[in-house]
Structure formats: C-alpha cells, structure tokens
C-alpha cells in the first residue's frame, strides 16, 4: 500500500460522514431545514411540494453517504489484510521421463546401500499385510482450541523369522560408511557394456541400464557380497560395508496433496523417532513395488522381454511417484495401458493386486520411520498430529454457533484404522464438565447407522462395541478383527458431547426466573413512575440483572463456549427483559397502561401493565429453560441409574453400537 493512501481513505470517509451528518441534521432539525429552504428558494416551489419530501430526500442522501463511507473503509480494510500475498497452491512438478527414471533409480540405489535388505523386506511385508503386524491401534483424540489433536499408538508384533534377519545381517554403521552422501552417484546412462557381464538390467528405455545393474549385481569371484547378493566391499561401487541395525516401519499413510500438521513421532519409551526423507521413502517403496512386479509378471527370460518388463516397471514407478493426486479411474487406465504389452504373462489375481497397490500409492504416500529392532518380538510406535475440522459454517445453525463464539460439540471422525489392525481402540475426551451424549457409527457416504447386524454382515469375526449411554466424560469405541471384513466400508463415528447438567443451563434458568420475578414484583409493588419520582435504585437493580446473569453463567469462558444455543439464548432473553423493563419504568406510562385492581389485604394497587407483560415474557423464558433443564437432568440421571442398576427389558448400555 502506497504511503499517503491511508490518509486519503481516512479523509474520504470523514468527509463523507461529515457531509452525511450535516445533511441529516439539516433534514431533521427545523432550524437548519428552514435555512436550507430559505437559501435555495426554488426548493420550496412546485418542484418540491412539501417540506417533508425534502427531509426524506435529505435523510436518504445521508444514508447513502454513510453506506459509501462504509464501502470505502471496507475496501481499505480488505487491501490492508494482504490476503493475496500467500504463496498459493503449488503446481505439480513434472519431470521428463529420463529424469524421473533416474531419480527413482538413484533413490533405490541409495536405499539399498543404506539399509539392510531384511529391513526393506519387513517394511514390504508390513505395508502389504498390516493386520498381520499391527496387533493394536489406539486412537486418542482431544479437542485443542478449534482443532483436534490425535495420538495414534500402534503395537507391532513380528515373528522371530521376521526379526532374526535384521539382527544377524545388520552391521553397525560408521559415520564414514553410512549415508547416501558417501555413496557414489549412479552412473550416467547408458553404457553399452552395462547390460553385459552377468549384470541383470533394470531400467527402461530411458537409459537407466548401467545404474540399475548396481541394484541387483550378481556376486562374482572375489566379490565380498553379503548374504543377499549385495556387495559389501569398500571398493565395490555398489555400496559401503556398514549398514545400520534398524527396521523400517510404515508409520503413517497420508493423503497426497494434504499437509500433515504438527506431526511428532516417538517410540514406546517416548524417544523421538526419525522419518526417512521423501527420496529414501521413494526408494524403499520402489523396492517393494519391484518385487510385487516380479511376482506378478515373473522373471523375464529373453533380453527383449527383460527390456519390456523394465519399461513397464518404470512406467508404473513414474505413475506412483508423480506429484499430486489423480483419480483411481485415471490411475487404473494408465496402469492397464502400460501393462498391456506383458499382460498375458500375469495371473489375474496378482495383476489385480499390483493395480490396487499402484492405485493406492498414486493417491497416498507412506511416512516411514527408522527404528532399532526390538529386544523381543513386539514394539510400540506413536505419532501425534493436529487435525482440522470442517463443516462448522455449512448450516445456519452451525454459523450461528460460530458467530456466538460457541465451540463445536458434535464431532464426526473417520474410522479408517480398524481394518488394518487386529484390535482398535478409539477414545475421545472433549473437556471439563462434559459427558458423551451420543456415540454412533455410520456409513460415511450415506450416513446410515451401523448396528450389530451390519457388523456381522461385514464379517463373522468382527466385533464392535461402543461405550455410550453411561454418562462418561470420554467416548470409547473398541473394534476387533475388522481386518477379516471382506470389503472394508468407509465408516465414521459421530460423537456428541453435552455439558453435565445443570451446568450453565441450570444457572441461566435460575437467573431467568429471578429476573422474571423481580420484574413482575416491580410491576405490582413499586409505585409507577409519574414523571418526577424515578427511583434510581430500582433502575440500577433492573439494569444490573443482565450483567449479573452473564457474570454468574460466564464465570468460565470455556464453560460458556461449550454450552448450548438454548443457554445462550436464555442469557440474551434475560438481559433483554431486564433492559426493556427498565426502559418502560423510565418512561411515564400512559393512562391505559396503568391498571388499578383491588387485591385482598393490599387494597387497590397500581400495576404498570407494560412492565407486567415483560415480567410474564421473562417468566415464560424461565419456564422453557426449566423444562429443558428438567429433560436434560432426567436423561442424565437415567443414564447414571442404568449404569448402576440395569433394568430388565432395557438394553444394557454399550451392548449395541
């Protein structure tokens, strides 16, 4: 924004507002209006038949000037925010085929030099068969400010066969030998001798042949290759000798294109766990895909077949590692088109599996953790991240809650993880003085509720239990053997929290009743204001009811934010009735508003009917709040009673979802 622009817009706004004020005063006040008419005599001619018309036009002009000033200020505010200065959404980086192949190959070589083969092996097995290794997942969600914070704890378990290779093969790394920075760069393609000499070629027509030979080089005479056939000699271009004693674990599957917020990972003892870089993760996944590809299409026999296989493999790797997210249909179409030349050599089931894996990896990426092998056969990993919520302003009621500053109390949380583990726990706690009112499971697409029959239809061994209707301050869902479901369904949980009654609603109800009582007594007992005897005490008392109510209920901002719209509306109604009653009291009432009924023992009294009517409205508000409070209390007490003493004929709490 240029210097001086602020002063210009302020001057413009002030000028418009000043002129508007002058015009409004001239239109309303008699003296200036007469002056205006005298100054411009033709205004008072047949063109303007009445002075009233001039006043109306003047007021309209003043309103237009105010609106114009408002627009000027709004425009200036918008420009000052600099909303357009964000970097925007990044465009996808598309590499040339040759460069993409080279990057993939470079990643594969670096990974194969850095990590022992059993680590990559175990990674592939966990990635493709997670339920075999993930025995328990605990998903804990907590509300933090306007977002949710999730802590996912996964207990892994492997067989001795899975882990023994890691312990035996691994050689402690030294700083001089470990890491991609010490590895020679892949050779530049293509060298005509790269395809010879017993080396099996990997790489497509884009010229990755010589480099790919480094991946699967067959140990020759004098080569101190490792048990997997990988070279370990210090002079061997295939890689240095030292490889760390680590495991690679797929820790987070994340949607491509999204951002992970505030991710932290740590192991069972609370120590931080490092991630692999994007390049290394790509290399590890590429190794797994390569093995899947081999299992699908078999080993090529002839050199021509081998070239075709390599071309298809790298086409698939390019698809998987491309930046951005494409639809499953597009990915499948790409897959089918590229696989067509060698499709005949694959079994249909394996082909289907490879296509599914590619389609998944096109749309998602794997966050890989590097952890030391466990002493036993099980190990625990945690990750925590912040997850935003959406849908707060998609309905009128939701927008109303936002405008009133009320926090969300109904959460819909995707249930993605139960199908990948033997057992799954979900827990959620909203905050102090709240309890779980509803906890249900629904189909994500249709919103249809899931009951035990639906669970049984998914799998005979699946088990789902929700702890609800127990007036607990936390939600808990337990799922077991969902990994046996034939077709995993997209499920969501709906968790509704409510404040423990009476809470803010109870206080509001009592204050509304007190306010209504005071106003009604004022109408009946306090002498009517006759114009010269306004009781300051009465006024002060009436006007104080509203802030006192707000103070009582809102002694905890957090508590008020978690309260319902009814509580908020009750507070507003209480304040409004107090204010209206005070205004009616100040204004001397007309005669028709004062009744003089005769009351036994009191004789004739004077009643301000206006104040009395406001007192009645306040009483109705208080009655509504009390009925609502009674329902909430009744429900809450019923829940407590059911937990302590289940009654026959009623479903046991938590027995069904």
């Amino acid at each position: 924004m240029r210097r001086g622009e602020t002063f210009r817009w302020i001057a413009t706004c002030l000028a418009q507002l000043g002129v508007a004020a002058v015009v409004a005063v001239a239109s309303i006040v008699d003296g200036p209006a007469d002056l205006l008419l005298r100054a411009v005599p033709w205004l008072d001619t047949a063109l303007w038949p009445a002075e009233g018309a001039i006043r109306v036009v003047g007021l309209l002009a003043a309103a237009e000037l105010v609106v114009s000033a408002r627009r000027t200020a709004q425009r200036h505010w918008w420009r000052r925010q600099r909303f357009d200065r964000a970097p925007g959404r990044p465009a996808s980086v598309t590499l040339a085929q040759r460069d993409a192949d080279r990057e993939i190959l470079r990643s594969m070589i670096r990974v194969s030099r850095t990590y022992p083969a059993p680590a990559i092996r175990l990674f592939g097995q966990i990635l493709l068969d997670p339920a075999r290794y993930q025995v328990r997942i605990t998903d804990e969600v907590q509300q933090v400010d306007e977002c949710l914070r999730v802590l996912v704890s996964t207990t892994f378990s492997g067989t001795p066969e899975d882990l023994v290779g890691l312990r035996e093969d691994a050689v402690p790394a030294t700083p001089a030998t470990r890491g991609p920075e010490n590895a020679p760069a892949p050779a530049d393609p293509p060298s005509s001798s790269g395809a010879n000499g017993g080396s099996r070629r990997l790489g497509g027509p884009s010229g990755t042949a010589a480099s790919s030979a480094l991946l699967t080089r067959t140990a020759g005479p004098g080569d101190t290759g490792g048990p997997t056939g990988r070279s370990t000699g210090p002079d061997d271009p295939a890689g240095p000798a030292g490889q760390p004693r680590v495991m690679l674990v797929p820790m987070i599957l994340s949607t491509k294109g999204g951002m992970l917020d505030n991710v932290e990972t740590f192991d069972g003892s609370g120590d931080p766990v490092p991630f692999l870089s994007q390049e290394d993760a790509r290399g590890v996944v590429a190794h797994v895909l390569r093995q899947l590809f081999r299992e699908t299409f078999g080993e090529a026999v002839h050199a021509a077949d081998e070239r075709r296989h390599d071309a298809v493999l790298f086409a698939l790797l390019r698809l998987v590692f491309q930046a951005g997210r494409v639809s499953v249909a597009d990915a499948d179409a790409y897959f089918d088109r590229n696989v067509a030349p060698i499709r005949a050599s694959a079994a249909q089931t394996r082909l289907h599996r490879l296509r599914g894996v590619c389609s998944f990896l096109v749309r998602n990426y794997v966050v890989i953790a590097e952890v030391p092998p466990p002493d036993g056969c099980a190990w625990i990993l945690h990750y925590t991240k912040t997850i935003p919520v959406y849908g707060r302003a998609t309905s009128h009621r939701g927008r109303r809650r936002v405008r009133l500053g009320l926090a969300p109390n109904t959460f819909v949380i995707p249930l993605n993880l139960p199908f990948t583990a033997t057992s799954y726990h979900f827990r959620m706690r909203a905050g102090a003085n709240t309890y779980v009112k509803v906890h249900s499971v629904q189909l994500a697409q249709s919103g249809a509720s899931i009951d035990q029959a639906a669970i049984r239809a998914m799998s005979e061994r699946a088990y789902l239990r929700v702890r609800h209707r127990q007036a607990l301050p936390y939600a808990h869902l337990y799922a077991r053997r969902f990994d046996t479901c034939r077709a995993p369904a997209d499920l969501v949980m709906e968790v509704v929290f409510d404040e423990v009654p009476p809470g803010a609603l109870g206080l509001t109800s009592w204050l509304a009743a007190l306010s209504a009582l005071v106003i009604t007594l004022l109408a009946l007992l306090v002498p009517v204001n006759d114009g010269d005897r306004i009781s300051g005490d009465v006024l002060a008392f009436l006007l104080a009811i509203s802030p006192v109510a707000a103070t009582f209920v809102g002694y905890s901002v957090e508590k008020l934010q978690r309260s319902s719209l009814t509580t908020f509306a009750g507070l507003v109604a209480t304040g409004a009735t107090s204010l209206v009653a005070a205004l009616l009291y100040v204004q001397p009432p007309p005669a028709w508003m004062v009744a003089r009924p005769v009351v036994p023992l009191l004789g004739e009294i004077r009643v301000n009917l206006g104040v009395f009517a406001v007192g009645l409205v306040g009483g109705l508000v208080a009655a509504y709040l009390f009925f609502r409070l009674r329902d909430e209390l009744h429900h809450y007490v019923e829940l407590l009673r059911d937990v302590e003493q289940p009654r026959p004929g009623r479903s046991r709490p938590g027995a069904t979802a």
Partner: protein
Amino acid sequence: MSRPKPRGPARDPEELVMDRGAAPGVGDDLLDSLPADAVVAYRGEPRASERAMLQWPMAAEQRQAFGAGIE
C-alpha cells in the same frame, strides 16, 4: 434436521475436500444426515476402502517368499 444441499467445491477449503474421495458428491450424503452443528474431522489419511487396495493378507509362506525376493 438437515443441512442445506452442497453448493459446489467452493464450500470447503481446497485442501479439506479430499477426505470425501475422488468421486464428486461422496460424503455429501453424510453431511446431509448429520446434525446441523456437527463438524467433520479431516484426518488427511486414506479411507478404509482405499486402504483395502493396498492390503493383501498373505499366508506365512507367501509372505516369506515375497520378502525373500526383495534384494
């Protein structure tokens, strides 16, 4: 109580649309069926049906054979 019908992709921040999947309209029925004051958590992770594409339970021998092939 039902939500108003979706009014196109501009209703959500661009990065939050993805949880609804690739097919347009997926999840909108869910939003319609929810209470009006519900909010939806964006996990940024693949849905269960999408994860199913990746998962291929294997017998122990198959798993070992698969692992042995990774060099």
